[in-house]
């Protein structure tokens, strides 16, 4: 297993009482797998990703990531709000992680240029983030993560802030990139359609406290494009997961309503 999340809980104090964000989550992700995590807001999907990324320390439990290549970072995250350094050019943003790890200039720039070519931004290497559209910034975010050649690529609702057309194109781009690199991906989204288009499996999480409700294999074949939306198998699976997700969303809304 590439990633093993073993009995992980996260609790924090909020105005005197303890809030359990994640409650004894266990997950296994195979090497090269594209795993999608879906759940209502407040189900702790982003928290889970941040624990795997090492940005947040779990209260209990264990996360193990298999390090196949020495020197490569375990994870690299694509943030929802891109989180690029505004004072760095596109190229300088993409090399940032390599620079921090002391990779030579020639090597890191060559690597960054490869990644920019992969996301179709070669012509924008010298631009600053504020000169780019939302979709282009997110491509830079993906290039920055991939340039680090991580064991696992983590994506936290990367396309949520994009308009519908751009999002669709970015999803197809991501599938193409993933197919060419074979990276292990954990992808958090609130969109079931997105999860079914991208994922090998869909993990459904419950409303607070976040638990794994059920795991659904997505047997829709590869390569996948938008046309799978017309297939009967897609409709059946969507309906099956949605009926469960709806219960969770309603539960989450009720929980928010209670004083």
């Amino acid at each position, binding site marked *: 297993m590439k990633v093993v999340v073993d009995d992980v809980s996260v609790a924090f104090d909020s105005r005197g009482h303890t809030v359990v964000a994640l409650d004894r989550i266990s997950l296994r992700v195979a090497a090269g797998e594209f795993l999608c995590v879906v759940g209502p807001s407040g189900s702790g999907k982003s928290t889970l990703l941040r624990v795997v*990324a090492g940005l947040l320390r779990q209260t209990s439990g264990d996360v193990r990531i298999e390090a196949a290549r020495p020197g490569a970072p375990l994870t690299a*995250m694509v943030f929802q709000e891109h*989180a*690029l*350094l505004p004072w*760095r050019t596109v190229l300088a943003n993409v090399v940032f992680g390599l620079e*921090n790890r002391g990779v030579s200039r020639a090597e890191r720039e060559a690597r960054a240029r490869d990644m920019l070519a992969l996301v179709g931004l070669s012509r924008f290497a010298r631009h600053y983030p504020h000169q780019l559209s939302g979709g282009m910034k997110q491509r830079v975010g993906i290039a*920055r993560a991939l340039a680090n050649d991580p064991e696992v690529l983590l994506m936290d609702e990367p396309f949520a802030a994009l308009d519908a057309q751009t999002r669709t194109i970015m999803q197809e781009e991501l599938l193409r990139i993933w197919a060419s690199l074979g990276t292990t991906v954990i992808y958090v989204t609130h969109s079931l359609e997105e999860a079914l288009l991208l994922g090998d499996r869909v993990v459904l999480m419950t409303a607070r406290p976040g638990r794994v409700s059920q795991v659904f294999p997505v047997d829709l074949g590869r390569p996948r494009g938008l046309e799978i939306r017309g297939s009967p198998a897609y409709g059946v699976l969507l309906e099956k997961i949605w009926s469960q997700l709806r219960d969770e969303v309603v539960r989450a809304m009720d929980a928010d309503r209670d004083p």
Partner: protein
Amino acid sequence: MSRRPGWLAQHWLAVASPVALLIGWEVASAVGLLREAFFPRPSTVLIHLRRLVTDGTLLAHALPTLSRIGGAFALAAILGVATGLAMGLWRRLREGLDPVFAVIYPIPSVLFLPLVSFLVPRGETALIVTTAATSFFLVAFTTTEGVRQIDPLVVEAARHYGARGRRLFTAVLLPGALPFILTGLRLGLGYALIVVVAVEIVSASRGLGALLWLSWQVLKVEDMYATFLVIAALGAVLSYGLAVLRARLLPWAQDVAER
């Protein structure tokens, strides 16, 4: 693409209004609407300015002022940026110093001169330290805010990509705060000029402030106005110089500032 209109076509009002003011003044003094003894014609002032330049008086007074501004600005910039960075990074320090600064900052700096004269050698050093006071506070304030307004998500992303300690400071916090720091320096330089003139009026025999005051005391009103002009021009040059420096140092922040 259509040709952009020339600079003058866009900014004719900015040029026309001071010219109209000068012409109005000239006419008003010539026909006796303004008393020439107190409001000499601009043309007369220019003749006197030329004499001050050619007989070396102006240079003899401008050099001490420039060296005081230089010393005071360097002092305020170095101490102000260092203090501001420290206050931005450490909450405790900020909470401790904020009220003290808030009380001292609004006091007109000239009033510090007697106190400063007890603490440091009288004369040049006291003048420079007094001149630096207000600028120091301005630079420290803006630098503190500069550190605090950096997007925490950007800092988190930078950490995630391996920026720690010294590297986090030089590659993230410092460039992130730089637009604010440069704004503070520009304000601080302007205030250094204001205060140095005031301090020179109170306690110096050389300097543009001294020349201004001396001219007034002996009713050489034309020389007083000529000195006015020089001080105003100096202020404009210093401010413009730092604006140009800012544009060169911060290509990524330029568009935002000019919007």
